[in-house]
């Protein structure tokens, strides 16, 4: 018998064979390859020409943008506005600290062997918002107060998305528990709440929050526009969050509920100590995905007159001093969002894969 080590006949595919197998295996594959290849060559070359090779990156002012390519100089000069909005120059270090803390809490999540990365994550969920609450609006510990109407740009985008997620998490948990409750009225109320919020477009929610809310409240009770937008976004988001969490609750086997009851734990302890920790861990990818969705949707605050990144860019691209920089502006915004969303979605896919295998053992 054969016995000892024997190599497979074709150990590794030679490049030619690889191309054959993956690009030209049948006649229609060949056709597809050729068509797609042609498309790539004709579209990618001019695009890169515009983006990079013919583009202007530095200079002093509008006059320096003479090449045929993009005028990145414009972005370069307005970057401060795109990131901080109207936030006073002297106080921008506070926002920088928040950016650093944000990176500190979430970059370790991408590194598997980072010691204590869960703690960093937990800080991101609890300490970070607290720091933000102190640092960004100011007014504490002798920090100069900065009115929310001065917030803008990328910073505002992040604030809205982050607050939206953090605040909607607990509400989402309650709604999800309510929707699985055995009490028909509670369940009914939760279903109605969730379905109504999920049915309406975010911009109508924002519109209501931004201009109509005071009409519903008792006279004299009023909060600032940003806060109202945040409330609207949070309620809207919590309906989505509830559905994600409900998925996690459903995935927990009945045995866990029973074992917890058999040990004599009451409803809230059963949920808090046994079920939710498991369910939430299970739906982290889902939560991350809703975060991405919300992050993209923050652009809609532009429609109610808040200057997020897109709003900031839009309000400057019509500057008569610069010739036709709208495309550069939009490409810049698209790139910002893309980098964030793609990075996070990659992370969530990784996580999904990891949790997937984790379950089988």
């Amino acid at each position, binding site marked *: 018998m054969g016995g000892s080590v024997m190599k497979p006949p074709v150990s590794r595919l030679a490049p030619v064979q690889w191309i054959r197998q993956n690009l030209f295996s049948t006649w229609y594959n060949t056709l597809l390859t050729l068509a797609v290849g042609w498309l790539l060559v004709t579209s990618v070359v001019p695009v890169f020409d515009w983006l990079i090779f013919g583009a202007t990156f530095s200079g002093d002012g509008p006059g320096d943008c003479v090449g045929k390519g993009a005028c990145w100089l414009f972005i370069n000069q307005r970057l401060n506005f795109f990131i901080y909005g109207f936030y006073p120059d002297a106080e921008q270090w506070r926002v920088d600290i928040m950016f650093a803390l944000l990176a500190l809490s979430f970059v370790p999540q991408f590194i598997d062997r980072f010691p204590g990365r869960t703690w960093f994550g937990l800080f991101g969920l609890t300490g970070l918002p607290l720091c933000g609450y102190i640092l960004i609006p100011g007014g504490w510990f002798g920090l100069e107060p900065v009115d929310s109407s001065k917030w803008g740009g990328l910073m505002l985008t992040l604030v809205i998305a982050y607050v939206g997620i953090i605040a909607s998490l607990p509400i989402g948990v309650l709604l999800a528990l309510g929707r699985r409750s055995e009490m028909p009225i509670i369940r009914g109320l939760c279903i109605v709440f969730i379905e109504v919020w999920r*049915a309406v477009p975010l911009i109508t929610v924002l519109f209501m929050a931004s201009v109509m809310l005071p009409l519903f409240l008792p006279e004299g009770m009023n909060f600032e526009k940003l806060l109202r937008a945040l409330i609207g976004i949070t309620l809207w988001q919590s309906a989505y969050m509830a559905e994600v969490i409900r998925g996690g609750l459903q995935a927990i086997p009945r045995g866990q509920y029973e074992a917890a009851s058999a040990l004599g734990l009451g409803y809230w302890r059963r949920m808090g100590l046994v079920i939710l920790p498991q369910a939430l861990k299970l739906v982290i990818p889902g939560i991350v995905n809703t975060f991405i969705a919300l992050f993209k949707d923050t652009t809609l605050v532009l429609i109610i007159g808040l200057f997020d990144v897109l709003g900031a860019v839009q309000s400057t691209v019509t500057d008569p001093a610069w010739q036709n920089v709208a495309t550069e502006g939009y490409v810049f915004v698209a790139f910002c969002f893309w980098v964030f969303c793609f990075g996070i979605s990659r992370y969530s896919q990784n996580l999904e894969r990891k949790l997937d295998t984790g379950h089988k053992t």
Partner: protein
Amino acid sequence: MNSQQPVSKPSGPKPWYDPRVRALVFQALALAAVFWAGWVLIDNTLANMESRGISTGFGFLDQSAGFGIIMHLIPYDATMSYGRTFWVGLLNTLLVSFLGIVAATILGFLLGVARLSSNWLVARLALVYIEVIRNIPLLLQIFFWYFAVLRNLPAPRQSLELAGLAFLNNRGLYLPDPVAQEGAGALFAICLLAVVAVVVLRIWAKRRQRATGRIFPTFRVGLAILVLVPALGYLATGAPIAWDVPELRGFNYRGGLTLIPELAALWVALSLYTAAFIAEIVRSGILSVSKGQTEASKALGLPNGLTLRLVVIPQAMRVIIPPLTSQYLNLTKNSSLATAIGYPDLVAVFMGTTLNQTGQAVEVVAMTMAVYLSISLFISLLMNLYNRAVAIKER
């Protein structure tokens, strides 16, 4: 509960320890709280509106609107009522949603399959497309398609034209409008006949397969019938359809069918964006069918094509349909971004101009939200019916 035997201990717990009583009380409280909150809201709103002298009621719907709307599927002009603007906006919303759903579905399925293609280049390209498109905010994409593309189209006098029949410029795409002439009825009847013939053919082919086992290429023959018969019929009945060809008069083309850039941009952006999500749904749907199923099917001797058609797709559809509908709902909701580029959808026309001219925010917003809620409930209803119909039977 209703024990028949004598009970040694006092039967039934004290009411506050009985979970049923607790549940009832708790629910009653919750309901009361919700009603109270609702009442306070309504009371406040009414009081506020009263004190600020805002008129209430739906009487405004009968007043004349006085503004123009670029696109209307039902007859509309500025002398008609605000109520009419509601329907114009609603139909425009439904139109763009419908078009978007159709295009996104087709493109999404193609992309989803392309993602699984054995052709490396095609699979990669589909992946790049999906990852780029779904990570960029939709609003931005709508702006892009509207402004960037519009800038690159020629002015009306330099229109791109196709055989003097179709014209493309930055005012839109102008196509000949079919106008029925004498004999059009006959042509219509012929088309109808062709459709009936295909249906009959399908039934016949199925019967024949049941009886003799021979398989008839229904799809190809049916397609041929659907294309050839109306074409021949058109010639045979003496070309009974006249075409209202658009022509350049004054500033622009007039007559014919027009596809305005606002609709086109919104349609393209919504379809491309949603297609990226649908592609992922389709892909995971197909992958969710376990390998065992394909293997079993192959082991029975079914070739790849039939395995896909008879075993994989029917099972994948069950997984695909529910998230697919929620994408349809998202698309419909996202169509409200029309307001950013001036497409006259419900939010732009009714919650925009009409609200502003009449100032009756509460009524207008309530009506708008009710519309979206109804659409959503309607689609969920269909969804549940479908789910019930296809649910895999289990013990």
